[in-house]
């Protein structure tokens, strides 16, 4: 990654824009549990490589791959298979009942 030259980010904060294309909630504040080590961390704290050819997010604890995100001209590919659960904070009155 030594030729990484843009003022680009290297953690999950950089996923905020791409994720906002498809999710209605701000997903970088969500907490993901690593399928490999079982530890939980905010999406913003994932170790991220990218943005080209795509983003790859690693667990800050065990470095296993948690997610991949690739944007093509007509699609967004999102692989969340390294995350076993995602906790998204919701307003207390939004249960829909």
């Amino acid at each position, binding site marked *: 990654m030594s030729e990484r030259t843009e003022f680009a980010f*290297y953690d999950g904060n*950089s996923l905020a824009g791409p994720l906002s294309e498809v999710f209605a909630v701000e997903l970088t504040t969500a907490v993901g549990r690593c399928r490999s080590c079982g530890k939980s961390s905010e999406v913003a704290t994932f170790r991220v490589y990218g943005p080209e050819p795509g983003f790859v997010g690693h667990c800050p604890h065990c470095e296993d791959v948690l997610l991949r995100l690739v944007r093509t001209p007509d699609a967004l590919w999102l692989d969340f298979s390294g995350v076993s659960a995602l906790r998204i904070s919701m307003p207390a009155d939004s249960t829909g009942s």
Partner: protein
Amino acid sequence: MERRRETATASTLVLDVPGWPGHQPGQHLDVRLTADDGYQAARSYSLAAPADGDRVEITVQRVPDGEVSSYLADATQSDDAVEVRGPVGGWFVWNPQGDSRPVLLVAGGSGVVPLMAMIRSRDGARPAPPFRLIYSVRSPDDRIYDQELRRRATEDGDLDVTFIYTRTAPGGEARPVGRISADDLSMYGFPVVEEPIVYVCGPTGFVERVSDLLIDLGHDPAKIKTERFGPSGP
């Protein structure tokens, strides 16, 4: 689009974004450029100032071969249009209305940009908590927002600004040049017992180092928020 030069390699761009909904300090703006052949490149930039209606500011550090930053830093005329999306992000933010705890900001190079947005948002915070900024740069010429930071520190008794020089220091600087140390963070930050919220932004290596030093000093890892943007830097 207006441009304001900050250093030899960094410029602030003032963008007019109709319908901008406002933002929190620390949030980003995504910029997308499309070439004539359809090739697209998108980059995320920290917003540098509180929202002022439809006017938003980003500060871009030009880097060699950076296809987006070079365009933004050099090629833009006042009537050029770029595609933007935002605000985005919600984790590395400070809420001027919601928190009165002391705030320690630690910046490496152009990592100062989102932290400057937090400092500039102090004006609207009641009561404004004490802020301390520790800003690591290679040399005096690399200080972004230099004059404004000095002015604000002079006018605002609850804002301290300390520069750390890693390669070249100005004449009369007592601290020897060198990487930021635990002593720097102890001397110019807040004591652990005051339980400051800490924001660290800079190149990846810088952020890792500062986080480790802060945790060694006894700061609660849960109160340290970080943002990384690259592998090299001061």
